[in-house]
């Protein structure tokens, strides 16, 4: 490996190739930093801020910040954990996240982060926005109630010509991720499955696939999110 550098996360000595984004460098060193908009293999954009860390007294998103030689990163201090928890709570109140009736429950990253930070109740009032469910395409359901606008689907689900199946539509409070009708008509099963799995919440669902895994055997039923990294 070329150009290995040393740095510290919460006082722990770590090593990674220079220029690696902090989230990935942490992962390589067995340290979990939560992400929602970021995903391995996608270009980071630092939108959800859940991966916020403190470097030299400044709060930065660790998915967009590369490691440099000798930096000291603060990730799990009490105030950063509290900040991350408040982001999760804001996401819960700004959409309609009815976990008991959600097909993604147990496999949902937003919910798993709620568990990780022991969110018993959000500190903010629920918004209950009126949102649509688009079930018009043959393979998938796009439920706007649960969408957190992370853009993972837009960036990762593309056809052979590089065209995205999903796109942002409208702006501000009305911003939503919509599915391209024409492209969706010819979506393969594999791509539909990938879209559902890449979605950190239950906003993209493959039709007739809900509740396939029984309670107790789902991804985050017994193991907290990040435990596969921290071991």
């Amino acid at each position: 490996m070329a150009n290995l550098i040393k740095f510290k996360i919460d006082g722990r000595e770590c090593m990674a190739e220079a220029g690696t984004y902090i989230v990935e460098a942490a992962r390589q060193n067995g340290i979990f930093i939560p992400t929602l908009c970021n995903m391995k293999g996608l270009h980071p954009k630092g939108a959800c801020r859940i991966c916020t860390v403190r470097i030299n007294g400044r709060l930065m998103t660790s998915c967009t910040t590369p490691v440099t030689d000798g930096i000291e990163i603060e990730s799990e201090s009490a105030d950063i954990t509290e900040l991350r928890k408040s982001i999760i709570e804001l996401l819960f109140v700004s959409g309609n996240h009815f976990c008991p009736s959600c097909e993604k429950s147990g496999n949902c990253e937003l919910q798993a982060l709620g568990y990780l930070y022991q969110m018993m109740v959000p500190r903010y009032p629920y918004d209950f926005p009126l949102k649509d469910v688009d079930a018009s395409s043959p393979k998938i359901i796009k439920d706007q109630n649960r969408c957190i606008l992370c853009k993972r689907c837009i960036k990762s689900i593309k056809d052979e010509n590089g065209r995205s199946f999903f796109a942002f539509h409208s702006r501000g409070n009305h911003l939503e991720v919509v599915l391209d009708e024409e492209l969706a008509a010819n979506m393969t099963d594999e791509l539909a499955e990938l879209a559902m799995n890449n979605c950190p919440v239950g906003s993209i669902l493959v039709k007739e696939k809900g509740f396939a895994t029984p309670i107790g055997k789902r991804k985050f039923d017994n193991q907290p999110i990040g435990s596969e990294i921290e071991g």
Partner: protein
Amino acid sequence: MSKPVIATTSLAGCFGCHMSILDIDERILQLIELVEFNKSPVDDIKTFTKPVDIGIIEGGCCNSENVEVLRSFRKNCKILISLGECAIMGGLPALRNGIPVEECLHEAYIGGPTVQLNKEHILPNDDELPMLLDRVYPCHEVVKIDYFLPGCPPRADLIWDALVALITGDPMKLPYEVVKFD
């Protein structure tokens, strides 16, 4: 010292949380050694007969009666616990939030595909019936709630641990498996 007194109620809920209270299985024998039940569907006492230490609320507020019962719980209980998703965030009844009440009633009693017998298109209007609220409210948006136990239903172990912690004053353990939102 007299035993701590517990009261429970189900507002806009399905009684699943109460089922989960019963799901503590044989520990219910220990529980009646530890506490005394007052107003609750468990013993069918309808009104408060003494000051209560711990009030357990299942379900959110969807009508005027729910608000009245919740306020009487706040008045009569030292500690109030929101038990389950409906009490905490409205739960499934809150799926109607954002849809005007008139539209909901129309769907349920007049225009719904399974409505056939209501030929005179009557909406329930008896004075005895509680009024529907404009939306379903989480309990803590109506009165002060002291503790929250999530789950649909909350796991029996979570309810048991919380009650034991409150009664003994010991800190709660909260293992990963018991705090769930579904």
